[in-house]
C-alpha cells in the first residue's frame, strides 16, 4: 500500500516537473542545436532519460529545471559527437547550415536577429538561452555549463556583443 503510494507520488512529481519545464528544455535545445527537428528529438530523449533517472534527482543539489537542462546538454553533446563521427565516416566535413526559411529560434523574431543567432556558435547560443531566454541566474547557468559563474558572465557578455554586432551588420545589409 505504501509502496504504491510512493510510486504514485514519484510519477506525479515527474509529471509536474516535465509539464513545468518542457518548454524551457525545448527552447534551450533549440538554441543549442539551431534546429527544431533535432531539438524535438533531443527533448524527447532528454525526458526519456530524466524519466529513467528521476530517482537520482536530488532537490537539495539544485532545482529540477537546472537538472533537466544539464541532462539536455549531455544528451545534445552525445548527439553532436555521434553526428561528428557520422560526418567523419561519411567524409562530409562541411557543417550544414539549415537552409529552410522557417524561423528556428522562435516565432516573431526579426530576420536579422534570427540570422544573427544562427551565426553564433552553439556555445554562445546556449549561454544566451540559459541566461536570457530561460532567465536562469548566473550560478544555475554556470552549473549547467560546468563552468564558474564569472566565466559564465564573461561568455554571456561576449555572446551578446557578438549578437548585437551581427544584428547591426544584418540590418545594414
Amino acid at each position, binding site marked *: 500500500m505504501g*509502496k504504491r503510494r*510512493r*510510486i504514485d507520488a*514519484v*510519477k506525479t512529481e*515527474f*509529471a509536474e516537473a*516535465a*509539464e513545468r519545464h*518542457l*518548454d524551457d*528544455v*525545448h*527552447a534551450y535545445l533549440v538554441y*543549442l542545436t*539551431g534546429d527544431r527537428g533535432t*531539438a*524535438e528529438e533531443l*527533448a*524527447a530523449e532528454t*525526458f*526519456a532519460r530524466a*524519466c*529513467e533517472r*528521476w*530517482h537520482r534527482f*536530488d532537490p537539495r543539489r539544485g532545482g529540477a529545471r537546472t537538472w533537466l537542462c544539464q541532462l539536455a546538454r549531455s544528451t545534445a*553533446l552525445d548527439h*553532436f*559527437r555521434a553526428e*561528428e563521427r557520422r560526418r567523419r565516416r561519411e567524409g562530409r566535413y562541411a*557543417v550544414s547550415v539549415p537552409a529552410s526559411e522557417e524561423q*528556428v*529560434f*522562435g*516565432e*516573431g*523574431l*526579426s530576420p536579422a*536577429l534570427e540570422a544573427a543567432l544562427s551565426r553564433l*556558435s*552553439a*556555445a554562445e547560443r*546556449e549561454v*544566451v538561452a540559459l*541566461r*536570457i*531566454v530561460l*532567465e536562469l*541566474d*548566473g550560478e544555475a*547557468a554556470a552549473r549547467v555549463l560546468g*563552468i564558474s559563474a564569472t566565466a559564465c*558572465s564573461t561568455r*554571456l*557578455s561576449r555572446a*551578446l556583443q557578438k*549578437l*548585437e554586432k551581427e*544584428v547591426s551588420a544584418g540590418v545594414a545589409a
Partner: protein
Amino acid sequence: MSPLELVDDRFDKLAEELRASRPVAPVALRAQVRALAPPGPRGTFPRPSRRVVFALAGAALLASFVAAGVTGLSGSSTKQQSAVKPKSVKTTTEHGDAVRQGVGGVALKTPAPNLGPLQRTSDLAPTAGRLQRYQATLRLRVKDVDAMSSAAKRAMNVTHGLGGYVASVQYATRSKGGGATLVLRVPVGNVQTALTELASLGTILQQHTGILDVTRRVDREALQIAELERQLAHASPSEAPVIRAKLATLRAKHARLLKSARLARITLGLTTPAKQAATAPSRFDRTVDDAGSVLLRELEILLYALVVAGPLLLLGAAGIAAAKAQRRRSDARLLERA
C-alpha cells in the same frame, strides 16, 4: 534582479525580443513526454549527504577514543595485578647449591616484611674449621641521598669495627637520586655479623652469597711448597735459582689464597629510589598512558595508511580532474564547431 543587470543595459531590448519569441514545445512532443512514467523508487543505496559523512567521521573518531579508553582501563588493571606479585631472591653457593629466599623482592613496592635482621640476611655461614672463600653481594635501597651517605659511613664503621677494611668505594649522586658501591673485606669469622649489620641499613633488594671451600687447595699448595723447600735444600747451585723462583711464586699465591679465605668479600650496593618509581602511578595515570599509547598507535596506522594510499589517491584524483578538464575542453570545442 534581471540576469542582464550584470552584463549591460544595452542588451535589454535584445533580451526582450528573444524572451518574447521563445520557442514553444510542439503538442506532439508534449504528448510524448506526458506519456512517460518513471519507474518506482528503487532500492538503491542513497548517496550520503555531507552531514551524514561528518557524523560518520565523528563516530569513528569517538569509537577510536572509546577503544583507547577501554584498552587503557583493562591494561591498567592487568598491570596492577602483576605489580603486586612478589619476586624471590636467589641465593647460590659456588658449589651449585641454590636456595630461594622470599626476601626483599626487586619488584616489591613496599619494603620487605618486618622480619628480624638475622632472618632477613642469608643464613649461609662459613663452616668452622674449614678454609672457605666467602663472597657476598648485598643491594640495599635507602630512602634518599642523605640516608645513602650515612649508610655508607655506617657500613665502613661496621667493617672497621669487625676488623676488616674497605677495599673500594664508589659513590655517585644525581638529581633523581644516587647510588654507592662499597667493596668490604671482613674476617670470615665476622661475616655473619657484618651482613646482619649491613642489612639493617636499608631494604634488601638483592642478596647473593657464594662460598668456595679451598681447604684442599691450601693443603695441596702447602705440600707443594714443602716439596719445593725440600728440593731447594738438595739442589745444585745451577738449579737453586729456578726452584727459588718457583717457590716464591707459589708462596705468594698461597698467601693470597689464605688471605681470601681469611677475609670475606662483601659487595654492598646502596641505591635510592628513582623519583618516578617512588610513587607508583595511579590507575588513572596508567589508564591515560595506555589510552594515549593506543591513540598514538592508531595515529601511526592512519599515517601509514595515508603514506601508502595518499600518493595513489592523489594520482587518482589528479587523473579524474584531468579527465574532467579534458572532457570539458572537448565539449567546448564540439560546441564551437556545432
